[in-house]
């Protein structure tokens, strides 16, 4: 059996706004095993980044975790105090953000920033030792260690993203969350960064969570894929399985809406309507107003998130293709 690195159980998180409570994450559960990667895919506002911030407890003041457990390697993050959380961030879980320029401080060299990160979390390490490990990290992510003394503005977009990845690796975390790590990059650079991330993850036997709106990117890097819709997990399964046999009509629609340059040119399908307003989410299944298979039951009752096929979970009353016994 593989080892569970992260277990998220029934996570629910709300934002308080002047207009009312926004139900951003609603009863989400998943497991990331050691050395494995999970891809979270969904559209803007589906709650994928809110999950990432909940895992690190880096939430803004108006956000509140209403329930559920986040268990990282045996420790429950939802119950930790501030001091314990400091130990979890960087060492337990670290994060690669989308906007690499904003994640780096413009007035320090890239090397200094990573040295600082290492020293804050390992007080026994001196500057010289930390500098040596920064050089190693630079090599690992494909940057020339000579570039350590450069400032962020001297880096190209791809190099900055590599520097941010090096920083995320600095304290040997158990889990890395990569939130849209290549969205701002050109396709050739994106390809290089993704293959580098995948290689590092396999070499260091790390766990990863990739977050993206791009199902093609997620398909390339993830062992497991979770499809989010309006704050809920719609479907979760192994990558091959979910692409071969999508169960949830939303997953099916998402795949049909994604153009590809390979294979015969298939006609693309549209999804009627727009994603819901989470101040007043639709009753029952949140996808029902846009779902071609919706019935009265979908409007009234929330579908449970259950195992339809082996290791293939979905929340749907009328799943697409469940194998009959």
């Amino acid at each position, binding site marked *: 059996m593989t080892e569970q690195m992260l277990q998220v159980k029934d996570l629910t998180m709300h934002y308080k706004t002047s207009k009312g409570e926004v139900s951003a994450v609603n009863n989400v559960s998943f497991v990331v095993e050691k050395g494995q990667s999970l891809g979270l895919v969904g559209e803007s506002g589906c709650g994928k980044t809110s999950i990432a911030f909940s895992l690190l407890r880096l939430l803004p003041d108006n956000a509140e975790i209403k329930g559920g457990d986040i268990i990282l390697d045996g420790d429950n993050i939802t119950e930790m105090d501030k001091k314990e959380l400091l130990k979890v961030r960087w060492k337990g879980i670290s994060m690669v953000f989308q906007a690499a320029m904003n994640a780096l401080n413009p007035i320090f060299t890239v090397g200094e920033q990573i040295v600082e990160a290492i020293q804050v979390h390992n007080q026994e390490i001196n500057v010289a030792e930390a500098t040596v490990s920064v050089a190693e990290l630079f090599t690992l992510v494909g940057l020339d260690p000579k570039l350590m003394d450069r400032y962020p503005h001297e880096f190209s977009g791809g190099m900055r993203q590599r520097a941010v990845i090096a920083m995320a690796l600095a304290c040997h975390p158990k889990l890395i969350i990569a939130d849209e790590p290549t969205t701002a990059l*050109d396709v050739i650079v994106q390809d290089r960064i993704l293959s580098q991330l995948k290689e590092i993850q396999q070499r260091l036997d790390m766990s990863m969570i990739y977050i993206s709106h791009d199902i093609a990117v997620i398909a*390339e890097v*993830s062992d497991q894929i979770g499809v989010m819709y309006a704050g809920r997990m719609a479907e979760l399964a192994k990558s*091959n399985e979910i692409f071969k046999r999508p169960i949830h009509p939303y997953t099916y629609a998402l795949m049909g*809406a994604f153009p590809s*340059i390979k294979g015969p040119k298939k006609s693309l399908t*549209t999804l009627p309507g727009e994603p819901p307003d989470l101040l007043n989410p639709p009753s029952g299944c949140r996808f029902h107003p846009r779902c071609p298979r919706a019935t009265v039951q979908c409007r009234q009752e929330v579908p449970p998130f259950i195992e339809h096929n082996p290791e293939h979970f979905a929340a749907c009353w009328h799943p697409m293709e469940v194998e009959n016994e």
Partner: protein
Amino acid sequence: MSEKNSLVRVEHLVKKFPVSAGLFKTSKSFIHAVDDISFEIGYGSSLGLVGESGCGKTTTGKLLTRLYDPTSGLIEINDPKVGQVDLATLKGQDLKEFRGRVQIIFQDPYESLNPRRTIFDTVAEPLVVQGMGNITQREEQVSTLLETVGLTPASSFLFRYPHELSGGQRQRVAIARALVVNPSFVVADEPTSMLDVSIRIGVMQLMMELANKMGVSYLYITHDLAVARYMCQRIAVMYIGKIIEKAPTEELLANPLHPYTQALISAVPVPDPEFQRQAIPIKGGVSAPIDPPDQCRFYNRCPFADDFCRDNPHPPLEDKGDGHFVACYKV
């Protein structure tokens, strides 16, 4: 293609931006944003312009709508209503009138709409500028068009403001604004790249429908080859100010000839975990287009480059048959 059946004919188009430096802001060097490109777009057909950031595709779009003045070159438009015009040298009143025939849709519907103007004011503005119709006619025309772009019922959208609309709805407003004067040619600069997947296909299909219905031709600018595949009959690939390859869409994707196009296509992720993609590695990154040396722009990254490529000017676009053009000495 003969001159007669192409709506847009661009020849040797050049745009250089001065790089200011030093105490007196004198400029000795130039950014060669668009460097001697030529292409044609037929009636009711669309050309995809693809490439990475900074390759000059947006500058090309702005030149074709005369938001920038070209440094040199010809932009000939054979509009069925106005006749043949060289847009590159048009001035004053003539240019203003011609703006009614050529329109542009921008990438970001959050920035391209004025937050203080109602949807009606926004969509009707080109009509006001062109002096078309009176207020009742305008209102009728705007309502019909809003219905056409899927903002129904139009009466509920006319007097709303952009902040009340979602991203997809805003982009539909931007499309309506571009089409309200019934143009023959529209530059669409990444019109769907800011939209969510489930909204994006709807906007793409709308643009294709409108092209068929109203006979509009597009110059479709995008970084996404998969989107270009669905929107365009032909694709031109740009690299540092040059068009390095152009061909009918399926031909280009199935049989790319230029090493850069091959690398670009091989780097696109495929939404299928079982597909084993063979990425073609190319070294380095895109160099800055400031006074590039007179050799193939791709020379320093090309895996096949040799002394001949180094010592000769940038290769010309050569016809390899079936409308497939490529600029490479090694093909």
